[in-house]
């Protein structure tokens, strides 16, 4: 059981860390949810390389959820660290866009309000909770997509082997 957990956790940590970092870096983070899905796909790929057993879509969902949680934690930490840098970047953007202020749609200036860059503990915890839930769902989706891309075909019986009738037993639908 512990070995199974390690098999799942390591790829999830790697995929989640990469997805979290990319989601937290300014400019690059505009790809948003696709990084989380991509991270989960990566985690599934790594898992498929470490185990010889065929993986199911259920395995993809589980590893995807873990990847999403890791990504949420990493992104939140990165957001706290990079908030001063983000503030500076957006202020410079604001100065550039001010030349075109009359052409910009209403509500534009609210995007750069000071409150957007506050790092209070309740705000951080709220963002972590929301990110955790949303990234878990996105991660599950990415993990399932990854399984469809990287799943191994079940081993074929060797040619010439006698056909042994399958014991169907009781099947539940």
């Amino acid at each position, binding site marked *: 059981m512990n070995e199974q957990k390690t098999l799942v956790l390591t790829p999830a940590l790697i995929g989640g860390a990469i997805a979290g970092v990319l*989601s937290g870096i300014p400019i690059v*983070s*505009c*790809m*948003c*949810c*696709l990084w*989380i899905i991509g991270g989960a796909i990566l985690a599934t790929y790594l898992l498929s390389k470490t185990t010889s057993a065929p993986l*199911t*879509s*259920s395995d*993809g*969902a*589980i590893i995807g959820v873990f990847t999403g949680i890791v990504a*949420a934690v990493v*992104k939140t930490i990165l957001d706290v660290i990079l908030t001063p840098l983000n503030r500076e970047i957006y202020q410079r953007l604001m100065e550039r866009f001010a030349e075109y202020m009359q052409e*910009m*749609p*209403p*509500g*534009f200036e609210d*995007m750069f309000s000071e*409150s957007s860059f506050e790092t209070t503990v309740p705000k951080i915890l*709220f*963002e972590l909770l*929301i*990110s955790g839930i*949303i*990234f878990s769902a*996105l991660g*599950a*989706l990415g*993990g*399932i*997509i990854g*399984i*469809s*891309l990287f799943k191994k075909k079940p081993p074929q019986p060797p040619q010439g082997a006698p056909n042994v009738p399958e014991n169907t037993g009781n099947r*539940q*639908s």
Partner: protein
Amino acid sequence: MKTKSRVRLVYFLTLAGTLLWLGLIFLAPYLKSRDSGLNIFAYLIFAPICHQIPARSFFLFGHPLAVCGRCLGIYFGFLGGMGLYAFRRRFSVTTLPRIRTFILATSPLVLDGMGNFFHLWSTPHWIRFLTGFLWGLILPFYFITGVSDFFINRDREKAERSKNIS
């Protein structure tokens, strides 16, 4: 029979979640138009997964929606895919779509996204919405299949464990 009931449960829970999600997207600008402080939370919920740039978003009640045009397309596509899923799969099939289906549905989104990101072109809102919608259409076929598979496997393991005990 149990498979079908599990798939149906996952399907309807996902449908309820999708409708709630879309509702929140449209609720945000409404709350802002009413000067309600709750609009901050509404926009904050979508902040981790969308850049929310007003120039890339549709507007309602004079304020941008909580997500950009592409994300809105993905979520509406997901809703459309839910309808397609019920029609095509009828809650009984638990196999994932083919890789080429995924590539076909994803390519327009990736191409358009890359083109805009590297400033090769700038697409209008409706094309972003459309590329997102196309991709969103296939996502329920993965999500519902995978999550249902998780619960079906869990039920199977429980049944096997109780069989071994007895």
